[in-house]
């Protein structure tokens, strides 16, 4: 409507500024001032515009969602909506893992809310997102997959930090030997040290050979009539390869013990088994009694899992009560120890309950029924423990321990545990 547009323009710039004779006013009305006439005419024209509105006919609907190849987990809609209302993200992730294992997809009724979760959570939910979820995400302008990584920069373009990171991330295999050997001659110390650590982990490399030659004969078992003893011959600091990263100070260790510590942390732990003919547990027990207990045990704790992933050694160190003297290593050990060793350590009450929580958290795995029972017992006794997370790590069977009321001071914690476990159980049963 041209008249309407002209009057609307006059209204914006000011009717008084417009030439009254040129205003396209309707002649049916006599409204006094031109301002009033303009406004009433706009009302009439707007009414005519609304009454005579015609729909647009040049727009096509967006293509429909492609068909799915997997089934939807329709029974999970209700508990998932509840989990979303409660912001129980961990329960949703647990459900997603289980649903993906059963080849099920998140149902359309929950897609929008799942897609609106933070990007990290969305990425974890990718296995339960089917064709419709991807189609919808595109429409919503949500990127489900992380962007393709850019072409890696060349070695020369990298700064020293990136170089050290790249060496740390590179696979420790003979194919990468040239890279590590070149980096071992770098100007920057941090890069050289990373390269040394990498080379020490590749059997047959010049560094690994040097270390093994140096380690040879350092530990030996002396058999006595009723017992065994570990004989330790530490290297002197001067004997260590000059390029080896050195520790300036560690506890109360003297220069030779410190050199032994550096040597042990760069030596594959299995080497010591071959040297002594002892299993890790026995070797650790003997080492604990030796004069160099601190250097050896701490060296192994540093070697595992930082340099050499050897689960047998993780288990043995975890079960050797290392938490008593060297608590700083417990968390990493717990992460790498086997389920059986972790359970044995926890059930043997070798850890402080607070530490058990920290470890369970660090492991990020669902706890076994036995450990769950123990933890629930801890929580019941120590009601001040943060109630936020244990409920998501406990085995679902633990619900039976939180179904009955607890003493008043721990009752609210029990209710929270019950609520989350019950929700997780419903999510589990919905699949």
């Amino acid at each position, binding site marked *: 409507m041209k008249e309407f547009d002209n009057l*609307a323009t006059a209204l914006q710039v000011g*009717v008084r500024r417009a030439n009254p004779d040129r205003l396209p006013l309707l002649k049916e009305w006599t409204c006094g001032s031109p301002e009033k006439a303009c406004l009433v005419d706009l009302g009439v024209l707007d009414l005519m515009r609304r009454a005579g509105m015609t*729909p647009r006919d040049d727009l096509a609907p967006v293509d429909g969602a492609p068909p799915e190849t997997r089934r939807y987990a329709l029974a999970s809609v209700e508990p998932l909506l509840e989990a979303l209302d409660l912001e129980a993200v961990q329960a949703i992730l647990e459900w997603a893992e289980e649903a993906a294992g059963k080849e099920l997809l998140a149902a359309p009724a929950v*897609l929008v809310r799942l897609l609106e979760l933070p990007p990290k959570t969305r990425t974890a939910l990718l296995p339960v997102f089917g064709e*419709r979820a991807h189609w919808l995400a595109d*429409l919503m302008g949500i990127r489900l997959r992380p962007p393709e990584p850019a072409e890696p920069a060349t070695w020369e373009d990298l700064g020293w930090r990136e170089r050290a990171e790249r060496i740390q991330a590179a696979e420790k295999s003979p194919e990468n030997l040239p890279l590590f050997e070149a980096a071992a001659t770098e100007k920057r110390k941090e890069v050289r040290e990373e390269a040394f650590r990498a080379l020490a982990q590749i059997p047959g490399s010049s560094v690994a050979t040097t270390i093994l030659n140096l380690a040879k004969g350092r530990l030996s078992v002396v058999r006595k009539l009723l017992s065994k003893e570990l004989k330790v011959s530490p290297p002197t600091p001067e004997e260590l390869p000059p390029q080896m990263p050195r520790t300036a100070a560690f506890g109360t260790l003297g220069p030779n013990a410190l050199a032994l510590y550096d040597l042990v942390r760069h030596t594959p732990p299995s080497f010591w088994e071959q040297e002594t003919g002892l299993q890790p547990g026995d070797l650790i027990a003997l080492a604990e009694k030796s004069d160099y207990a601190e250097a050896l045990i701490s060296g192994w704790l540093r070697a595992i899992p930082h340099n050499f992933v050897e689960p047998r050694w993780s288990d043995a160190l975890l079960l050797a009560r290392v938490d008593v003297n060297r608590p700083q290593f417990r968390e990493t050990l717990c992460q790498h120890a086997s389920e059986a060793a972790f359970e044995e350590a926890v059930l043997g009450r070798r850890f402080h309950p607070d530490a058990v929580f920290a470890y369970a958290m660090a492991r990020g795995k669902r706890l076994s029924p036995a450990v769950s029972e123990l933890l629930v017992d801890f929580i019941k006794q120590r009601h001040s423990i943060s109630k936020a997370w244990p409920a998501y790590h406990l085995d679902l069977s633990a619900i039976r321990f939180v179904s009955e009321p607890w003493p008043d001071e721990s009752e609210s914690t029990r209710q929270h545990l019950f609520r989350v476990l019950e929700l997780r159980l419903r999510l589990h049963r919905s699949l």
Partner: protein
Amino acid sequence: MSQWTTERVLALAPDASSLSSARELSSEAKWPSSGTQNHALWGEAKGSGAKPYQTAVDLREPAFKCSCPSRKFPCKHALGLMIRYAKGEIMAASPPGWVTEWLEKRDEKSTKQETKSDAPKTEIDVEAAAKRSNKRWENILAGLEECEAFLADAAGQGLLATQSARSWDHMAARMVDAQSPGIARRLRQIGLTVGVGPDWGRTVAGQMGNLSLLMEGARRVESLNEDARVDLRVALGIPQKKDDVELAPVADVWDVLGQVIEQEDRITTCRSWLLGRGTGRWAMHLAFSVAGRPFDIRLLPGTAFVAELAFFPSAWPLRAHLEDAISEPFSPRIGATWDASLDRLSHALAAQPWIEQFPVHLTAARLGTDGHAWWVVDQNGQSGKLRGPLPWPVLALSGNAPAEVIGEWDGSSLRLMAAWGPWGFVSL
């Protein structure tokens, strides 16, 4: 079988945090005691204090009572208790003293109210009411003079030169004083639109024009017929009362197709759109709430009931009053096309030019986008622009297969309210 479902209960939640807390409280462990009998539901919830909170619900309305200090209504305890009831977790029992006492008081109060409303109005009442009405009309006309001068000034100087949202709000406040909340609301809307969006000039021109036309109509009210006069008074903001409804109610199965809840200041308005299955007649149920009081639960979109609706007088009657209703499965008539819907709108506007929202129900509709906005495309390929909430839930559930959609048309765009199809019903 109880009419209460978890979904219905959650619809009563005054906000998202209440919803989440209610879910937390819907576990058996939180309720050391609970029971139900007839329309009464009660329980004791463990709280942070030594004494449990006593929560009771009268399921008829519903009405709530809780001894917790929350100002929300209904509180999380009442909602949690109702979720448990909806799940069938609450056993029949004899109500304790504090519940019977509360219910008796409620019954007493309602009997008193009924007696009061049944009593014939005295002559003095009628006379006083007429006097009040005349006084109000005088106030409105005086206010309109002032408003007209304000609009003329704005038009004369130009919107670009002088107008700010504050001045519109100020004028709106004056119109509230002049007992014309309808004009005040329109003024506030204009204030919020000036300078906002690419096409604000045309929108504001339409809004100001519509307002001027309304004021012009008020001045010429004597020349209008009775229905047009009523419509004009409603547009000015003079409320209609329950007693004003027409005497012949319309009996039908009414499907609740959609609902829009809007908040303005402390008042929440709920418009529920109903479609008569046999008559094909549209009805709009309008309800207001303060302090988060829940709306009528029978009007949940995607449900239906048999009822006699009493329509308020109008040249194009839409607003209706609901009394008793009996639940029915939701099974609405099929919708129309854009052409047919807009044709119906033009007839409606010819009779009642102050209609602000008009129901548009389309069949076999799909959604499309022009890159800026979403549009509803009907089976003939004709489309109307969407406003309001984005249609993601509809797309998620339908996969953009043809669906029935319902929205409120404001003259230029559609506020999508709900959609349904073989995949279910979704309310936005």
